[in-house]
C-alpha cells in the first residue's frame, strides 16, 4: 500500500471495445471519506463505476482495494473483497419481496441490520412483504441504497442514488451516509444532485470526456465551482 487509501485508482482507463470512455482517472479514497463524481451526461461516470466494480475490464491502469491489486477481479468477487455497489439501473429483483431483496445476500435473512435505516425510511419496512416490482421508481432507488448501506463492506460505490427520489428522502440519504462515514466507511458517489454532493463530499471531482477536469475539497463553494465548469 502506498498510502492509507482503502480504494485507489491509478490512471484507470477503459471503455467498450475500441471506444475509450474513461481515460486516466486517478483517485485515493481514505477511510471515512466520500468522493463524489459529477459531470454532464455521457462523459463516462457510470462506465467508471463499472470499471471499479469489475463489471467492465479496464484497458489500462490499476485498482487497489486495501492495498491489494484487484484490477480485473470478476464482478461477483468484489463484495467479499469489501466493495459494495448500488448501480444506476436494474437495481431490484421485481419478482422478490422487499424483504427478500434486502436480505438475499445475507446468511441469516434477518432485517435486524436495517433497524436504523427503517427509522429513516419507514415505507420500506411497511412494504417488506410486498413484491419489489410494485414499488415506485423512487422507492426502488431507496431500497437499493439501503441494501448497499446495510452491507458490511468498507467501500461503497453508489451510482446516482437520488434519481427519482423525493427531496426529503435525499436529505435522509445524506444523513445516513454521514453516519456511515463516522464508522469509517468510505464512498464513491456518482451524482448529479449537488445538494447531496454538498452535504456529504470530502472531495468532488468533475469528469468530462472521460477525464477528471476539476476537483475541489471545499464544500462551501463546490456548487458554484462545479456548476460554472459544467458546460453542456
Amino acid at each position, binding site marked *: 500500500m502506498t498510502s492509507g487509501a482503502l480504494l485507489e485508482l491509478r490512471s484507470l482507463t477503459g471503455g*467498450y471495445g475500441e*471506444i475509450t470512455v474513461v481515460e486516466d482517472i486517478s483517485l485515493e479514497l481514505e477511510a471515512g471519506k466520500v468522493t463524489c463524481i*459529477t*459531470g*454532464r*451526461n*455521457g*462523459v463516462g*461516470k*457510470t462506465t467508471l463505476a463499472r470499471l471499479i466494480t469489475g463489471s467492465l475490464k479496464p484497458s489500462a491502469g490499476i485498482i487497489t482495494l486495501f492495498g491489494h491489486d484487484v484490477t480485473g477481479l470478476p464482478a461477483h468477487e468484489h463484495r467479499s473483497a469489501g466493495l459494495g455497489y448500488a448501480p*444506476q*439501473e436494474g437495481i431490484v429483483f421485481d419478482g422478490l419481496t422487499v424483504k427478500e431483496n434486502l436480505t438475499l445476500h445475507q446468511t441469516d435473512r434477518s432485517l435486524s441490520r436495517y433497524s436504523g435505516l427503517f427509522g429513516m425510511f419507514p*415505507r420500506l419496512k411497511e*412494504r417488506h*412483504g*410486498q*413484491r419489489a416490482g*410494485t*414499488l*415506485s*421508481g*423512487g*422507492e426502488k432507488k*431507496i431500497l437499493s441504497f439501503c441494501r448497499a448501506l446495510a452491507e458490511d463492506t468498507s467501500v461503497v460505490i453508489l451510482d*446516482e442514488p437520488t*434519481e*427519482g*427520489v*423525493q*427531496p*426529503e*428522502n*435525499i*436529505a435522509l440519504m445524506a444523513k445516513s451516509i454521514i453516519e456511515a462515514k463516522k464508522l469509517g466507511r468510505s464512498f464513491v458517489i456518482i451524482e*448529479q*444532485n*449537488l*445538494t447531496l454532493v454538498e452535504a456529504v463530499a470530502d472531495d468532488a471531482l468533475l469528469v468530462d470526456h472521460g477525464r477528471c477536469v476539476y476537483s475541489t475539497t471545499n464544500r462551501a463553494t463546490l456548487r458554484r465551482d462545479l*456548476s460554472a465548469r*459544467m*458546460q*453542456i
Partner: protein
Amino acid sequence: MRGVSVIPIVALVAVPFVWDSFTAYQLGLYLLYGMVAQGIALCWGRAGFLPLGQALFFGLGAYIAGAGLRSDPGWLLILPFFALAIIVPALFAWLIGALVFDRQIGSGPYFSLITLALSMLGFQLANSMDWLTGGFNGLTGISGLPGIDTYEHLYFVIIAAVAVVTILLGYLLRSPFGQLLEAVRDNEERLQFFGFKTSLLKASAFAISGALAGLSGALYAPHQGIVTPQAVGFLLSAELVIWTAVGGRFGLLGPIVGAVLIGFLASGLRDMFQYWEVVVALVFIGVVLYLPGGIGSLFSDLLKRLGFNLSAVGPASRSVKLNMRDLPETPVVEFDDVAVTMGQVAILRGLSLSIDEGGIHCIIGPNGAGKTSALNVLTGKLPLTSGRILLRQKPITSIRPFRAARMGIGRKFQVPSIFPSLSVRQNLDLAIWSNRLRPEAMLSMIPYSWSPELLDDLEGRFGFLAKSGMAAGSLSVGQRQMLDFAMTLLAEPDIVLLDEPCAGLSTPETAMMIDAIAALAKKTGATFVIIEHDMQVVERLSDHVYVMHQGRLLVSGTMEQVRADKEVQRVYSGGTK
C-alpha cells in the same frame, strides 16, 4: 459489394454442370430447407420469437402441392395448387400468431411450445387421416412439374425460387416493416406506446415464414415424389431450428448456409459413421457457445474486414417535410374514483382529478404516492380495480397501450425506454412513424425520408440526436432520457405524459430540459402532464400542480396555492438539485 454477391450465385448455378445429378438433388433439397430456415430467421433473429413447429407449414404446403400433382396436370392446374400451398400455411400461421400474441408481451415461450405442439399434432393427423394424406405410407404417385423431368432442371427452379425469396426478404428487412420487427425484438412495450399493435406485426412475420415454408413444401413434393407425415413432424421442425442457429439467424443467407452445410455434413457422415448425429449435435453446441451469430456471421465479419459493408445502403436523407399537426382542442382527462390494487397492496385508493385545460400540469408527491401508477392506468399499462377514466368524455377504462397512443396520449417513461440495439436514427424513425405509418406504407421506403417540423428543433436542442449512426444502447442514462423525450414529442400526441424528465440530468442539463419543455409545449399546443421531484422544474413550468399522497389527490391548484397548503407542507416540502 455487387461483385461479391454474384460469386455464390454463379457457383450455385454451375452445380449441375460441374457435379452429378445426385449432388443437384441433394443441394436442391437443402436449399428448400434453407428457405424454410430463412422464415425461421425472420421470426427468431429479427422479431425475437422462436417458432418450433415450422415443419407443419412445410408439410402442409407439400401435401397441398402433392395433391395437385398426383393427376399429372398441366401448368394451368398446378398454379392454383401452388398458390394454395403458399396461402393456406400463411393464413394458418397468421391465425396462430394473432391468437397467441394478442394479449400479452411475454408470450414468446408459450408461442414456441404451442407451435411445437401443433407440429406434433400435425404429424398425428397426417398419420391417421389415410383417406386424405395416405397415412403412414404417405402421399405417393406425385409427378414432377410439367416439362421439368430431371433433378438438374428442378434444381434451377429451386435456385430461382431461393433467389426471388432472398431478394424479397432483403427488401422486406430494409423496409419499415423490417425495422418495426427489430423494434419488437428490442422493446415491444415501447412500440405499443407509439400506437403499433405489435401482435399483428409478429403475426404478419409469422405468416410470411409460413408462406416460405409452404412454398418450400410445394417444391419438395415434386422433388421427392412422395410426402410422408415426417414432412410435418417435430423432428424436421427441430432440425430446421438447428440449421437456422448454425447458419445464423440474424442474416439473410445464414440460414441457407446452415441448411446446406449441415445437410452435406450429415449426408457425408451418415455413410461413414454410425454415430453421425453426435457430430452434428457437437457442431450445434459449438456454434451456440462460440459463434452465437452462426456461421453466416463469420462471412459477414470477413466481408466487413475486407471493406465490404453489408448494410451499405446508408440512411435516406430526410427530404419529405411533414408539417406539424393542427393544434388539438384541449383533451379533457378525468380520473373518477380510480383504485388499483396489486395483490394485497393498494396503489391507487380513489384517485379523482381532472385535467380540463391545456398548458403544463405537474404532479408532485412523495415516493410511492401513486404518481407513475396514475399514468400507468391512463395508458393501459396497469388495469383498474375500480372507478373509471374518461378522455374527451368517453370512458377509456380498459384501454390498451397501442389504443391509448392512437387516441393521442404520448408517454415518456421514468426509466427511459428506448430501442437499445437500434441506432439513434432508427429510434427517431419509429417515433416519427407513430400514428403516421399506415399498414400499406410499411413496405415503402418513403417513410425513411419523413422529416417532421419538430425534428430540427429537437436536434438543435439535443445535439447527439443528429449523430444518427450511434447505437442507442451506448447512450448514457441522461441521453436516453433526452432521446425518450424527443421520441415522445415526435409522435405529436395531444397529451404528453413526462415521467421525471430531468432524473439523471446535471444541473445545466436540467435547465436545458426545462427550456425544451416550455418551448415545445408552446409550439405544439399539446397538454403536458409532468411528474417531477425537482421543484425548480415545477416552479418554472407548471400552470397547475396536483399533489398526490397515498394513492389519492391531496390538493390541486397553482404553485402558490399548493405551497401555502398545510397538508402539503406536512407530507412534502420539495427541493432542488
